[in-house]
């Protein structure tokens, strides 16, 4: 199972950023996101996986598709990337990954930790945590997030208006 998930994450990620057709890129993104949800399920984070599928696969990707269709012009799929930029991108990506990877590897032996058979986080725990105000309570971020979403809605409205 792990192999499938890992491979699909890697492959779809790469394809999402290398394909020349923008709509396909969105599709590969969808697959990569779904594979991510697979990781969450493997970790026994059912709720997280479900959210991932609902929000990302169901919401964001659809948003992308709409946006692509809105801005899409037939025959302009092909992206001509200059080689200079490609090298730059590869270099930056590799350097970043290398640095993060090196940092992780060098941090003791914790990379070799294996999965302890943790249990699923029950829904009611999540609900309680989100609404509790004490230590490890997430009421405030939750409220703040709602403010953020409100702000984004207003922002969206402002931008979307014709005038």
């Amino acid at each position: 199972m792990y192999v499938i998930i890992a491979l699909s994450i890697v492959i779809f990620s790469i394809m999402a950023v290398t394909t020349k057709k923008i709509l396909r890129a969105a599709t590969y993104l969808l697959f990569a996101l779904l594979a991510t949800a697979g990781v969450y399920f493997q970790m026994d984070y059912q709720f997280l996986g479900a959210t991932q599928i609902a929000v990302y696969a169901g919401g964001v990707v659809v948003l992308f598709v709409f946006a692509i269709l809105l801005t899409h012009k037939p025959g302009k799929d092909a992206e001509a990337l200059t080689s200079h930029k490609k090298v730059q991108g590869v270099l930056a990506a590799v350097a970043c990954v290398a640095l993060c990877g090196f940092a992780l590897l060098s941090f003791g032996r914790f990379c070799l930790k294996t999965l302890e058979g943790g249990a699923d986080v029950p829904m009611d725990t999540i609900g309680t945590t989100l609404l509790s105000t004490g230590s490890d309570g997430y009421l405030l971020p939750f409220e703040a997030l709602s403010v953020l979403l409100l702000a984004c809605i207003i922002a969206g409205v402002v931008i979307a208006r014709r005038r």
Partner: protein
Amino acid sequence: MKLTLLMYLIPSLIMFGCGIYGFLTRKNMIAMLISLELMLNAVDINFALFNRFLYSGNHEGMLFSLFAIAIAAAETAVAIAIIINVYRIAKNVDINQINKLKF
């Protein structure tokens, strides 16, 4: 086969790297945004992984991922709105054309 943290971290990091690569090379702004999604997603995976593998006593990482997904969605929404907004007047979404302001 024991699944170690590293084995999960590698795809996540590759995802992040792909995101960076895409963001730096894609001409189409929506494609750049897709790359950004990859980056954000990779971070979410990290949080979940660390929580599960190392600190399974609490749920901070998982909850962070949860919130991050919401934030990412909001970001995407605003970004897409703005891209479309630009598209309306510039009639394209090529990032290389969006450079009237410089020096």
